[in-house]
């Protein structure tokens, strides 16, 4: 079927089998290989992209469901110079093998927006107050993005630093 995906600000007209996942549409049809396939089951987070600003596992959604949606992949983040978040990932060694990194960064961007909107998490004590930017909050909110090299300390520090800069 014919759909239009708006990816990183650019519109793409695609003729896709309705069963093609958004992840495969990005990787195989648009050749945007920055978004990684880790488990293809929505459990590792390597394929995290932003869908109209919200983070989503691209392997768990069909491309045809997103006709006209705005999708941001890692290729669309920092295209005009590194963002403070990306810079902080480098400074804090937020990766080793790097395979989860695009997903971590997209996820962190989405998470920052959730925080800004005051969404509580599983570890938030007060559901009505704005959540605090603690390590536990960040860790809980980033637990959908696995890193087998276990660079979690660096990832948490990088996110804290970048959010602190924006705050």
């Amino acid at each position, binding site marked *: 079927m014919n759909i239009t995906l708006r990816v990183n600000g650019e519109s793409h007209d695609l003729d896709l089998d309705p069963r093609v996942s958004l992840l495969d549409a990005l990787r195989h049809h648009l050749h945007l290989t920055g978004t*990684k396939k880790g488990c293809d*089951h929505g*459990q590792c987070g390597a394929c995290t992209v932003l869908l109209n600003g919200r983070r989503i596992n691209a392997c768990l959604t069909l491309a045809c469901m997103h006709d006209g949606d705005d999708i941001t992949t890692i290729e669309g983040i920092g295209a005009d110079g590194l963002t403070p978040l990306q810079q902080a990932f480098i400074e804090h060694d937020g*990766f080793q*093998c790097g395979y989860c990194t695009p997903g971590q960064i997209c996820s962190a961007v989405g998470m920052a927006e959730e925080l800004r909107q005051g969404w509580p998490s599983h570890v938030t004590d007060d559901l009505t107050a704005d959540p605090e930017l603690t390590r536990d909050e960040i860790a809980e909110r980033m637990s959908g993005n696995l890193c087998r090299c*276990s660079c979690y300390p660096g990832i948490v520090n990088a996110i804290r630093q970048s959010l602190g800069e924006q705050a």
Partner: protein
Amino acid sequence: MTVAKPLPHDAALLHVTGQARYVDDIPAPVGTLHLAFGLSAVAHGRITGMDLDAVRAAPGVVAVLTAEDLPFANDVSPGAHDEPLLADGTVHYVGQPIFLVVAETHLAARKAARLGRITYEELPALLTIDQALAADSRFESGPRIWSRGDAAAAIAIAPRMIEGTMEIGGQEHFYLEGQAAFALPQENGDVVVQSSTQHPTEIQHKVAEALGLPMSGVRVEVRRMGGGFGGKESQGNALAVACAVAARATGRPCKMRYDRDDDMVITGKRHDFRISYRVGYDDQGRVQGIEFLHLVRCGWAMDLSLPVADRAMLHADNAYFLPHVRIESHRLRTNTQSATAFRGFGGPQGIVAVERVMDHIAHTLNRDPLEVRQANFYAPDGSQSTPYGMRVTDSIIGDLAARLAETSDYHARRRAVAEWNATNPVLKKGIALTPVKFGISFTLSHLNQAGALVHVYQDGSIHLNHGGTEMGQGLFQKVAQVAAAGFGVDISRVRISATDTGKVPNTSATAASSGSDLNGMAVKAAVDTIRQRLAEMLAQEHQCAPADVHFADDRVTVGGADYTFEEVIHRAYTQRISLSATGFYKTPDLSWDRIKGQGRPFFYFAYGAAVSEVVLDTLTGESRILRTDILHDVGASLNPALDIGQVEGGFVQGAGWLTTEELVWDDKGRLRTHAPSTYKIPACGDRPRVFNVALWDGPNRADTIYKSKAVGEPPFMHGISVLMALSDAVAACGPDYPALDGPATAERLLRAVRRQVGHEL
């Protein structure tokens, strides 16, 4: 100097922008075909019929290959020739590849692979250690036995004796990038292979055998892996060979990538062990005599099981002097995935058992386990030797553990834990300090060699290549730092290139933590050769000794003259001096007899210690790591940022192995934990709440590259501190020794707590 600087990973900018390419990201030529295996559904059986008509007729299928279609060797084993690419009449585990589908798309290949109709005559399957032992199903003719002194006699006369058994689970690598390979046919039947492998030379070797080519007809390239952890030392062979064979059959480029579930079902994992011990000791907890029995579940093929089981034996002592010792190791063949290399390579299993022994001894004496450990540490004076007769001349474990106990406030926190446990009936805390001493070198001594290739171009830019592979550990950056330091130039001048069997031949796997030690030295040798040529050129011009020519800060000075690096390179070029060199290194002073269990298998030891504090919910079995402090010995660090990353990551992975990562096979031999939905690796929220990692500040006493030490595997063993802390928490629930097995899942912990309070679940 660029060494010792905390520079970020070499591909940092590529990683954060999504530009770093892994095998499946390399743009494939038009016409590339995709591969999938049809897998065995039974654990052991003779194939009586294979109806692949529906597979061949499936949309997009170009070819279907079985064992009979393979032109040359049908073998992807790393040495024993017991691992066919495609089953040749008999299947040995659920998930064994039987046929190969070649199709226009990845999905078409996978769908078609499900359409094969295989009939089997099922044979009895040996799935467990007990079944294999009863059937005497094993590798090697009998157990390996190494001993020193008379352990049985020493135990008999010791004031005290205990015995016990520990089950130690396996571990799925879960490299985030699954196995992948890509083969591009060349003229004259040659082939170029891109592979996600730690061992390009072995891929080259196996592909050459499978195509009937000399190794010179196969070139293998590896830019990076999305994690390896040992799981890409031999387990990538099947994909690369399948691609090469399919490319030969079809004349088209072929790519293969395992889906995650297939990856977990097909490939080998860490060996699970059952270790029994009998130990005699005195009232201070000092070991007088000890016996270990290692039962190792190796799976269906030999793979690397012998050196893995050997390394478990080699680490049965960990950091402790065992005066009379006997270690017996059975390498059992079962109808399960062929267990393979995994960070630590058997060492963690050997070490966790002796840590259990120390913990158990301390419990019987009602002493702080740290005191018992300290009473048994190798002396710093070099007077003691390991069970295999290697003198321990570099032991810093006593000082290191003492410093960690101080910086982590261990003793005060241990008292605080006791006070907490006295007043809190539901949440129990535990704390433990565990050491590690890890032997560095491949135990197959001839593997301890490496090569490098360095070019300096006319413009002063430097092209660097060596035999090691990059899997995230930061090897490429460390080695580039060595090259930059050698030329006295900025790191930006050094271009790191993909590992390539066409540039550096006959390489060993990037394994055994040896990457920087071996390849760093080889690169230094190549750089020294070129630098010496440059120095001799300038020395002749300035009528001085080559040693008076200095390379620093991107400049070269000699006498009163001061040149830019580019000027010197240009001058050398016009004077027709070669600006390219190979480098070679072999680790000195190794000798090892693995049958006798005697010799000097290691160049040196790496040390470290960790303190973990945990809290356990005795009503649910859930636990958390509250705080971990690690002090780790990397000698004089080549790059402290990368080394700390290795230490942190190793610890978390080790803690995962011993807590949440549980592999479950059913009674048909099917792996039921074949996806992250059922197999739990640590997530961000599972890291310690407080996590302090520091590096020991002494240089390596052995003559290694800039006096650094290997770092890949040793920190993995720090995860053992979590298991021992959990044991401490369970011990607070009742009078008995908890005897916790690994992994200490919530279910296991809850059962252990219930046993302590007298309510078996």
